[in-house]
C-alpha cells in the first residue's frame, strides 16, 4: 500500500510505533556505552583496582596480544567445536530417545523415575567420573555437555510429543493412519516449535557444559583461559575470556533465532 493512502490516524500510530522502537535501541546503546565508560573511568582514576577489575582498554589490549600470537583463535575454536559437538550430540540423542519413549509408552513408564532422578542430579557431579573414564581431554568435556543437555531435551521433547492434540490424533486414526504416519505427519511437525525452543535452551546448556568441563580438565579453550588467568592472577585474561564468551554465546543465539524464523515461516507456526 502506498504511504500516501494511509489515514492520518494510522500514520500517527505507525510513527509512534517506530519512534518507540528507535528509543528502545538508543537506550540500549546508551546503557552499554555507560557501562563501558564507567568501567574505564573508574579503573583509570584508581577508584576500582584495574588489576582486579581489569578495564575495557586492558581487555582490548589483551585481545590484541592474544590475537597476534594466534592463541585467541585457537582457544575460541576449541570451545566452539566442543560446544557445537556437545549441542548436536545432546540434541540429537535427546530427540531420538524421546521418539523411542513416545513410541513405546511402556518403556516410557519404566524409565520415568530414572529420568526424574537424573534430571534432578547436578550433572557437574559426574565430571570426575567422566575424567576417570575418558581421560582429561575433549572426550570428557563433550560428555559433560551431553550430560547437561540430554535429560532436559528428552523430557521437553517427550512432553511436547505427549501433548499433541488428541482430536488431531483421532482424525489421523480415523483416516487409517498407523503409528509411523501419525508420528511423521502429525506429531513431528506439530512439535517443531517445541524443538526450536529446545535448541535455544540447549545452546546455553552446551556452553555451561563446555566451560565447566574446561574448568576441570582442559589445556585449551575459553574456560581454560578463565581458570588459567585466575590461577596466575591475570584478571585481564579472565575478563577478556568472559567478554569473548558472551559474544560467542550471543552469536550462536542469533543463529538459532534465524533458524527459528525459517522454520516458523516454512511450517506456518505462530508464536
Amino acid at each position: 500500500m502506498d504511504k500516501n493512502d494511509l489515514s492520518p490516524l494510522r500514520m500517527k500510530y505507525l510513527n509512534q510505533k517506530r519512534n518507540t522502537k528507535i528509543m528502545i535501541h538508543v537506550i540500549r546503546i546508551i546503557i552499554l556505552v555507560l557501562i563501558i565508560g564507567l568501567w574505564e573511568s573508574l579503573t583509570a582514576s584508581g577508584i576500582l583496582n584495574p588489576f582486579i577489575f581489569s578495564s575495557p582498554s586492558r581487555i582490548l589490549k589483551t585481545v590484541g596480544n592474544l590475537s597476534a600470537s594466534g592463541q585467541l583463535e585457537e582457544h575460541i575454536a576449541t570451545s566452539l567445536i566442543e560446544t557445537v559437538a556437545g549441542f548436536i550430540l545432546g540434541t540429537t540423542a535427546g530427540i531420538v530417545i524421546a521418539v523411542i519413549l513416545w513410541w513405546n509408552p511402556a518403556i516410557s513408564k519404566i524409565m520415568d523415575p530414572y529420568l526424574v532422578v537424573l534430571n534432578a542430579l547436578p550433572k557437574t557431579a559426574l565430571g570426575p567420573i567422566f575424567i576417570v573414564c575418558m581421560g582429561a581431554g575433549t572426550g570428557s568435556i563433550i560428555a559433560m555437555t551431553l550430560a547437561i543437555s540430554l535429560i532436559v531435551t528428552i523430557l521437553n521433547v517427550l512432553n511436547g510429543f505427549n501433548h499433541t492434540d488428541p482430536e488431531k490424533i483421532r482424525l489421523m486414526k480415523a483416516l487409517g493412519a498407523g503409528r509411523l504416519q501419525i508420528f511423521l505427519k502429525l506429531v513431528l511437525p506439530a512439535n517443531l516449535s517445541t524443538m526450536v525452543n529446545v535448541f535455544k535452551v540447549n545452546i546455553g546448556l552446551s556452553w555451561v557444559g563446555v566451560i565447566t568441563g574446561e574448568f576441570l580438565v582442559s589445556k585449551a579453550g575459553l574456560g581454560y583461559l578463565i581458570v588459567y588467568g585466575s590461577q596466575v592472577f591475570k584478571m585481564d585474561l579472565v575478563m577478556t575470556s568472559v567478554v569473548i564468551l558472551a559474544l560467542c554465546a550471543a552469536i550462536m543465539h542469533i543463529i538459532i533465532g534465524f533458524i527459528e524464523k525459517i522454520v516458523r515461516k516454512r511450517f506456518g507456526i505462530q508464536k
Partner: protein
Amino acid sequence: MLKLEHVGLIYQTPEMEKEAVRDICFEIEEGEFVSLVGPSGCGKSTILYMIAGLEHPTTGRILLKGTPISAPSAEIGYMPQQDQLFPWRNIFSNVTLGLEIQKKGKRYYDRARELMDKYGVLDVASMTPAQLSGGMRQRCSLIRTLVTDPEFLLLDESFSALDYQTRIAVSIDTRDIIKSEHKTALLVTHDISESLMLSDRIIVMDKNPGKIYAIHDLTQMKDLTPEQRLEHPEYQVLLKKIWKELGINGQK
C-alpha cells in the same frame, strides 16, 4: 446400510467401571441424514467412535453393509469437532491428507481437485488454513472427508465451534454437499434446531448410561429446505417434543 445391534460399551479405568452406552439399536438406510442428539455425557460421541472403528463395543455389534466393523476403514469418513486442519500444510495437502495416508493413486487426487473446484476452494488451494475464514475451513474439512470417497460420513459436532451465523450457513452447506454427493451421514449434535433443520431422522439419547430415548422420523419435512422447515408445523411439534424428552422444561 449401517446397523447397530444391542451395542453397549463399558469403559474400565483404575478408579471405576463406567457404562458409557447400553443396548443401542438403530439402522441407517443408504442416503439418509440422521442426527444423534442428547446432553453431553450421553455417549453420542462414543457411538460415533465405535462406528468409526476407534472404539470397540463390549456387547452387541455394528454392521456396515452386513460386515462387522473392527477397525477404521476407507468406507467411513470422519469429520471432527472443529476443522482440525494442520497449520503447517496448505489447503490442498490438508484436503488430500487421507489420500496420502491411504496411499491412493492419481485418480483420487484428480477427484480431490474436482471437488475443490466444485465447492469453491480450489482458488485457495495453496493458502494456509490461518488465511481462511472459519466457514471456509469447515468446508475444506468436509472435502477432506469426501476425497477418500467414503460411503458413510460421521460428523462429530462438526459445527459447534463456529459462531451462530457461520454455524447455520456451514451446517446447511454441509448438508447440501453431502446430499449432492449421495452420501449417508450421521451427525452428532446437542443442538436440537440444527438436527431439525438438517436431518431425515433424529435419534434422541438419554444419559447414565447412554441409551436411546426416542427416534423421530421427519416424515413431512424430509424434502424441504432448512429454511422451509423453520416455518413448517412439524418443526415446532418436534422441537417441543424433543425439548420434553431431553428434560429441558423440567417435566420429563
